């Protein structure tokens, strides 16, 4: 089991330095997380989630996009099939990200990798991968630094959980967010998230299909079926339009 020994080979002071380097590198992203976290917490509290339930959600799930989507569809009691399905669809990109990560994780034992992957979000993944590529170019024998990745992850995770909880505490102070136009915060957040995913007009064509189908189903069918209907229509379009 050479993997085991290599995974432990880094001396403690060096590991600590790597952790600190990751934490420092995550600072700008942490600041970027704060407004999203506050808005999510406030929206969750408007949907009836308590100030304890919000950090449980964001601490166990730790996936902003799926949390915004779930909260938007939250009812009392929540519709499990809808929430689970939407979570799967929003987060299925993790499958691709994990696959791209795998070659850099070969030297680590699974008992280290599996817990570490809990913290894999778009940002920690991108930063860990970028660092590993730099490391490979610099000739590091193990390009991926688990301690650096964990440093990034700790900073982002703590920020997300703490500030969504704060948002949930502040939310009720703002009162009914559908008054005074506060309901527009929700599409605003999603449009900014979508801009972050934007690659090209061609890549966004399935989104247009989703939007059109979702609007039609929303107008014609009662309930939240417009979400799975729109999502599935867009995914089918992406499948049909993919270059072979």
């Amino acid at each position, binding site marked *: 089991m050479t993997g085991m020994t290599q995974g432990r080979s880094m001396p403690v002071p060096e590991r600590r330095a790597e952790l600190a380097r990751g934490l420092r590198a995550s600072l700008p992203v942490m600041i970027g997380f704060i*407004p*999203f976290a506050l808005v999510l917490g406030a929206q969750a509290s408007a949907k009836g*989630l308590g100030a*304890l*339930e919000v950090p*449980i*959600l964001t601490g*166990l799930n730790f996936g902003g996009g*799926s949390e915004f*989507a*779930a909260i938007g569809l*939250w009812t009392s*009691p*929540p519709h*499990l099939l809808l*929430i689970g399905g939407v979570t*799967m*669809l929003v987060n*299925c*990109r*993790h*499958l*691709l990200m*994990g*696959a791209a990560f*795998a070659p850099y994780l070969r030297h680590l034992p699974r008992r280290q990798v*599996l817990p570490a992957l809990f913290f*894999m979000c778009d940002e920690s993944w991108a930063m860990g991968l970028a660092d590993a590529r730099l490391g490979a170019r610099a000739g590091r024998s193990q390009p991926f630094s688990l301690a650096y990745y964990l440093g990034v992850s700790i900073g982002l995770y703590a920020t997300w959980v703490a500030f969504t909880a704060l948002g949930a505490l502040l939310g009720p102070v703002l009162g009914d967010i559908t008054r005074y*136009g506060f309901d*527009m*915060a*929700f*599409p*605003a957040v*999603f*449009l*900014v998230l*979508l*801009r972050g*995913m934007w*690659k090209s007009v061609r*890549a966004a064509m399935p989104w247009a*299909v*989703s*939007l059109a189908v*979702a*609007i039609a189903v*929303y107008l014609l069918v009662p309930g939240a079926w*417009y*979400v799975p*209907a*729109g*999502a599935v229509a*867009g*995914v089918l379009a*992406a*499948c049909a*339009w*993919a*270059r072979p």
Partner: protein
Amino acid sequence: MMPDPATLGAILLMAIVTYATRIGGYLLLGDRILSPRMTAVMDAAPGCVLVSVIAPAFAAGRSADLIALVATLFAATRLPLLPTVLIGVASAAMLRFMLPA
């Protein structure tokens, strides 16, 4: 303040699904080459869900809401999150006041 069991159940379900997506790629796909079709589907899916969730905003019957949405959309293409949210909220509030339903 005890958490609600139905809420906790939904949260737990989300947590399990999300963690499965995080380890699934590493465990199952790490050594495989994905077809371009599969890659295209997984690339497009998150945006498809997000845009579907906000579809009701696009289907609003009120002109004030639609104009505010266009202003928000415009802001989202060039501004960070916070100013975009502020513009969205302020424009919706103002337009609803100026153009009553």
